């Protein structure tokens, strides 16, 4: 076969709603960002004169995508001028009323579905097999039905799902590198996880992540892959290059304000942190940490600094500066309360060490810390300082 050059992207999430709720038309701006990031890929496909483009699932959000976006998508995909192969993901599954089934797609677009899972691009000696979603949640896929690779073709397996992650309840097609490797394909075009990854145990598996970061947990590079491949006499050469497409960068930063004696000091610290960020590009969340006697109005601080920012949020995660160590020794009810709370906090902290990503434990720890503060405030001050609405 001759050398082929193709692009691999995934998880575009057109018209996705955003968890962070910004001022004004923040959501609309971010949805435009997603389009722009996707356009960055399409432009590059044209300028690099790629042979075809692969989109490994979650092209759009089934629940919220609107007609105008689909019309726009039709226009931009048809303008690319090269074959585009798509598999449905868990956010845009191939269900009865899906846009894949009902919408008119450009002639250069092929959607691989259970009805039609494979495609041969004869011009390029490329054979593609797709394993996408036919529902919003799907368990382990039946890989025995996957067609074997075609001889003398460069074989690509497009897969939207979870690779090498042993979640207890995995509803997103969990597979292992070993299982995929046994299929014998030349390139595994993955999708589902939003962070770029090219270091799987399966050497020829690549996950491009989302072209635009979609939340505070999606820091780092966001883009797509340009793949140059050649297969001759059982020898496959693969050159995979990643490139950045993101319009925005998420920053989720903790700022310890322990020792700040006045609100002004806190403001100066926040300002110091913000100076290193790009207000036109960065979506920023500053979480104030530490212990303080100060009454911090997070909303007031947010509105004070966020005027020129697309998104800036300041959270108050500080704790009241109770001398917990000393209180623990107190023989009064206060001491007994602190000891009881600390014992409970310690139990959760220990559990968190075992399972640091458990959201329930994190939440429990947060509730316990809050309860400790509230209890001490109630005992000591006879009132609870309530910030926010």
């Amino acid at each position, binding site marked *: 076969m001759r050398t082929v050059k193709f692009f691999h992207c995934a998880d575009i999430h057109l018209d996705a709603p955003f968890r962070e709720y910004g001022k004004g038309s923040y959501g609309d701006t971010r949805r435009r960002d997603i389009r722009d990031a996707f356009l960055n890929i399409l432009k590059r496909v044209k300028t690099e004169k790629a042979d075809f483009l692969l989109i490994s699932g979650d092209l759009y959000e089934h629940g919220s995508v609107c*007609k105008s976006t689909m019309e726009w998508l039709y226009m931009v995909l048809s303008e690319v001028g090269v074959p585009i192969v798509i598999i449905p993901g868990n956010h845009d599954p191939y269900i009865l009323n899906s846009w894949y089934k*009902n919408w008119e797609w450009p002639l250069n677009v092929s959607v691989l579905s259970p009805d039609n899972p494979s495609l041969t691009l004869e011009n390029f000696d490329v054979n593609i097999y797709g394993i996408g979603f036919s529902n919003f949640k799907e368990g382990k896929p039946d890989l025995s039905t996957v067609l074997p690779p075609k001889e003398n073709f460069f074989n690509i397996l497009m897969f939207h799902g979870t690779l090498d992650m042993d979640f207890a309840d995995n509803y997103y097609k969990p597979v292992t590198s070993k299982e995929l490797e046994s299929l014998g394909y030349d390139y595994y075009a993955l999708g589902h996880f939003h962070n770029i990854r090219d270091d799987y145990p399966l050497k020829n598996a690549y996950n491009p992540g989302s072209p635009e970061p979609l939340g505070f947990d999606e820091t780092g590079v966001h883009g797509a892959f340009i793949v140059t491949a050649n297969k001759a006499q059982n020898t496959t050469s693969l050159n995979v290059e990643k490139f950045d497409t993101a319009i925005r960068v998420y920053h989720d930063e903790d700022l310890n304000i322990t020792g700040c004696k006045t609100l002004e000091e806190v403001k100066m610290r926040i300002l110091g942190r913000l100076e290193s960020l790009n207000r036109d590009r960065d979506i920023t969340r500053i979480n104030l940490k530490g212990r303080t006697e100060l009454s911090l109005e997070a909303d007031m601080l947010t509105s004070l600094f966020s005027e020129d920012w697309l998104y800036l949020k300041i959270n108050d995660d500080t704790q009241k500066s109770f001398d917990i160590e*000393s209180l623990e020794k107190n*023989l009064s009810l206060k001491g007994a309360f602190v000891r009881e709370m600390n014992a409970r906090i310690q139990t959760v902290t220990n559990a968190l060490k075992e399972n640091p990503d458990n959201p329930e434990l994190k939440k429990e720890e*947060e509730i316990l810390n809050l*309860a400790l*503060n509230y209890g001490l405030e*109630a005992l000591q001050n006879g009132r*609870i300082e309530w910030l926010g609405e």
Partner: protein
Amino acid sequence: MKIKLLDIKGFGKLNKVKIAPKEGFNIIFETNESGKSTLQAFIRAMLYGQRGGRKSKEGSLPPLKHNKPWSSEQYAGIMEYTLENGKSYRVGRNFEKGTTNIYDDGANNLTNSFPTDKERGPMFADEHLGIDEAAFERSAFIGQLQSVIDEEGKKNLVDKLSNLNTTGSEDISLTGALKVLDSTLLERVGTKTSTTRPLDKINNTLAELEREKSELEKKNESFMDTVLALREQKAILGELDKKLEQLYIQKKAMKTSRLLSLKKELEALILEKNRLEELLNESNRNIIKLKNFENITMEAVSEIAMMLREDKQIDEMIQLEKIRLSEFQEKSDELLNSLEPDELFEKKMEEVQTAIEIYNEAKERNKNRVVESTKSNISTKHKQNWMPFILPAGLLSAMLMVAYYFYKENPLFLAVGAATAVITLVVFFISIARQRNNGIKYNTAADELNEVLSEAGFTDMVSFIKYREAQIKTRELQKSYKKQILSSKDHIERLSEKKNKFNEIWDSFIEDCKINYYDTDRTKVFESIKNDAESYFKAIEEKKILLSEKDNLNEKGKIVLREAEMIAGDAFLSTDDFINYVNSLNYGPKLNEDESTLAKLDETIKATENRKIDTELKIAAINARLEQAPAESEISTVLEKISYYTEKKEELEMKGSALILASQVLKAAALNMQRDYIPYLNEKMSKMMNILSAGRYLKIRTNDELNINLESPETDELIPVNRLSAGTIDQVYFCMRLAAVTLIEKDREILPLFLDEPFSQYDEERVKNAFELLKVISTKRQVFFFTCREREYEIAASVFGDSMNRIRLS
């Protein structure tokens, strides 16, 4: 812990004061403002250091500034103390410089062996005493009691007692804290029963957003259904377009085929027309040949034929009539010859008639006479009528004779028959005789008649009648013949006239034929004319038929052309034009016209086109519906709002959970305290109260509701603390404070006790009892008693005697 030395270099108003307290009871009996509180502050500062910084919110100075010496240059001091384990320590603090040095009894500087607070320096006291400054102050220092006479003061004291009893600290209120947590939960979060609190508002907002989301999702679903419908309709439209395309091709082929067929039809028509033209020409030639008969009509021929037949009949009729006329003439002449001349006959007839009339008159007269005689004798009439008898009698006689002939054996038949015959003959002759007698009377008239008849040549009347009848009959017959002769002549004349008329018609007919016929035999002439005329008419008829057929052919040709024009969608100027057009066509596939005719195909095309129009209308309607699709990002915006409010809700719920948890843990901790400390506290308090009340109250008990009750030995009654007098409550409070100190220092260092005017509300007896208690306490614990009251000093002195150590501040 026992304080051995207090060397105040400078601290507040105290300047260069050196105190060496005793291990037991120490009394600082000084006037107000002499430095009693400063001494207490100095001891606290030496142990725990002093907090610096800015003014507090209330405007008070921090201790470090507040306690600056008034007159001394030095802001420092030294304190020496011994712990229960026998180890002694010396602490030197320079508050000005913020330096602290701790030495053990071996003069080892231990300063760096303790954790150091930035402001307070090394925290040795926390370690040596096992409690922090706050706990030390709360437990070791008992200030002037709060009990006053009024109810408010009493309540405060009860609250303090309660706090002490429930929280271990008189300043910490469990119920107050729980109330704060509950009210915060209700006001700042919301509860299951609340409706207007923040959480309720968020829940309402979320419910509204969920409703909005649901509506948008429905709209989206409906939109997707519409998109699906559009796709289906477009597919149908595509199919219809394909079908129509095929039908159009089919139609075009069929049209071509039909045009070809029409062309053939037209060509056949042309051939037929040519043949007709030939026949017409021949017909015309025949007509021209028989042109002489053009004025003759078939009616005329028929009429002439009839006329000729009638003429012949007339000839025959004339002939017959003439024969009859001749016969009638002959007979008439014959009759005329047989007749008497009329005058003679009339004369005879007149004469005889007259004689007859006379006779008849005579006869009439005679008849009248007979009638009269008949009327007078009816029987006579009967006698005269014997004929009814004669005939049957004769017949009977004959029958009897015949009978006898057959039955000769019976002579009776003969006898009777003969007798009957004789009788009949007798009767007959008698009758005739009688009639003769009656006629004689009118014989004269008859004779006269007979004479006339005879003269006229008649023998009798009968001959006359015969003559007369014969003459009359003959004359009538002759008359009839004459009449018939006239009629016959008339008939012949009329027939002759008709014949003449026929001749005229014939002549006219012959003239119309424009041919000269020399033959006189009309029949022959007529037959010739008739044949020729019929040939002419036939030729004319044939021509008419041919012309009609030609017209038909022309009409058919026009129809074929019209159809061809319709099929081709073009106008053809002539047949040749059409044929040329068809010849120029590229012939499509041959079709089996039996299966689908062009008309049928047209119907199918029409139906398909109608379906296409319907489908296009449906698509237009669907497209119109699609225009009403949810606005861009509408649902995303709602989802974002839901996410935002859900986060807020979770935050509030988390805070609510934290408030509830705090409340629960507080209650649990309080219960634990009750379980772990209260029995001990009660025991200690009871012992002290027994001393304080001089045996009036033996025990202090706390029930499950954490209420304090006193047990009176007199009544065995448990008296709630709030029912006691203010003084007794003071005593209970004092006991509880002392008990609390023992509780705090349990398993730790025994703390010195600093009492600052604790008995100001006591009467003398109570003061004495209190000192008695302190005397017991001071055996194991160093006590510092601060007072400005003479009474307390004297009572203390009386209770303690020499063991009391008075400390002077000046």
